[in-house]
């Protein structure tokens, strides 16, 4: 079914054209359990470093 473009869609598309968009690979990494376990550790370490720096 051909969907009609509402003014909302047109506005959204015009904005979206120049926005940086993630590739499918980047998107899949965001919810890849193994990769995210690694990121969980990395982000926590980064946060702990800043928390330590902020409490000193």
């Amino acid at each position, binding site marked *: 079914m051909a969907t009609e473009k*509402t003014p*909302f*869609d047109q*506005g*959204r598309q015009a*904005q*979206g054209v*120049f*926005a*940086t*968009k*993630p590739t499918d690979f980047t*998107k899949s*990494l*965001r*919810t*890849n*359990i193994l*990769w*995210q*376990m690694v*990121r*969980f550790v990395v*982000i*926590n370490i*980064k*946060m*702990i*470093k*800043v*928390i330590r*720096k*902020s*409490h000193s």
Partner: protein
Amino acid sequence: MSRPRVVILGAGVAGHTSAAFLKKWLGKEAEVIVISPRPDYNWIPSNIWVGVGLLRPDQVTFSLPPVYQRKDITFHQAKATVMHPEGQGDDHTPFVEAESTLEGRAGEVIRIPYDYLINATGPKLAFEATPGLGPKGHSLSVCTAPHALEASLALDESVARMRKGERQRFLVGTGHGTCTCQGAAFEYIVNLEFELRARGVRDKADITYLSNEFELGDFGMGGIHIRRGGYVTPSNIFTESLFAERGLRWVTQAHVKGLEPGCASLEFLNGEEGEERFDLAMLLPPFKGVGLKALDRQGTDITDRLFAPSGFMKVDADYQAKPFESWRASDWPHTYQSPAYRNLFAAGIAFAPPHPVSRPRQSPKGTVITPAPPRTGMPSAIIGRAVARSIVDMIRGAEKPTQTASMAEMGAACVASAGANPFRGTAASIIVFPIIPDFERYPEYGRDMNHTFGEIGLAGHWIKILLHHLFIYKAKMLAFWSLIPE
């Protein structure tokens, strides 16, 4: 000799943290008294999930009196109204006046004397600044747990309509040109979008973000820069990217002049006017001080001496008006002590910031359309703890505050939920150091690029869940609570 009395106004992130640490460090050496109008503690960041129907209000709140009783902290369920920092007449004992909010005693005035006072009353949600804004008008809010519940019920209604085939327009963002807390609006819109997808009605929804930011990703912090993929990239690129990916439309540089049912009238920075139509609007209010008054011993009103026109309390910041280019990180307060009274402090949102962080801008009509500076949970708690430590040391003989907690010298870790699901959810983990950019120390971006960081992914969502449980556990002051960092 009677024990020193430390009175804390407000049982939010800052006030509750102060009370908990004061009691831990002082034990029986002093009386710790908390005055707050509501008997509950609310972990406000999780209100977002109440607002999309994923949590119940009782999962983000708990009753304070049993906790305070267990810890020997005195609690008055009351709303502080007037400070008497010099006492009254011949009695030089400072005291604070409060109106009870207890059922059956509402409005009854109580007087609580103090040796040290911490004002941690947070923000007044100033819906009245925009005609028609707020749950009593034509838009919703997620600033309190009951507001968030109302938003979730309205969302259920919209979803029911979409299931019947109707299109629905959602408008989410800031309800005034001077709002802060864009992070909360950002979280709500991306969670809303995620939830509409989960409920199978995304194709029936037009979702618009409406903001007073000059560009997306400003967040009242003048934006942040992050090293990523071989570039130093500003936060507006990341935010636009996420919005474009999720099919969200955005309208920036906007002040909401007023709301009618289903329609927001706007004024833009360039002087143009416009409107946005909606079926459901969640628009945040601007924040003001809660309107505390102060009287001297003779009963003369000294509110102006203690408070800025915004109603927030003046502390040891440099409040001299100066042009944007002359703003310094060192203008920001260090000890949060009132310059007027050595035993008076403000913590969390209650202190008056010296200036915004984002460049101030006005429309040709003179309407200010600039985000106010953010005061998120982490700095509020760190400030609450630092003020508590200073007071402990002053009780034990120190002449002046011993601790500093400048927002220009501390970082903030913030996890903004972008969809709640243990396997498919994501959140943006953002770390900035320092919160207030310091262009003298970090000339190019104002921040330490080795510590400033941002990433979106499922790990962020897991961290958000962990923080929800950890911070509620900590606030309940259960075993080893003080080991959990602010």
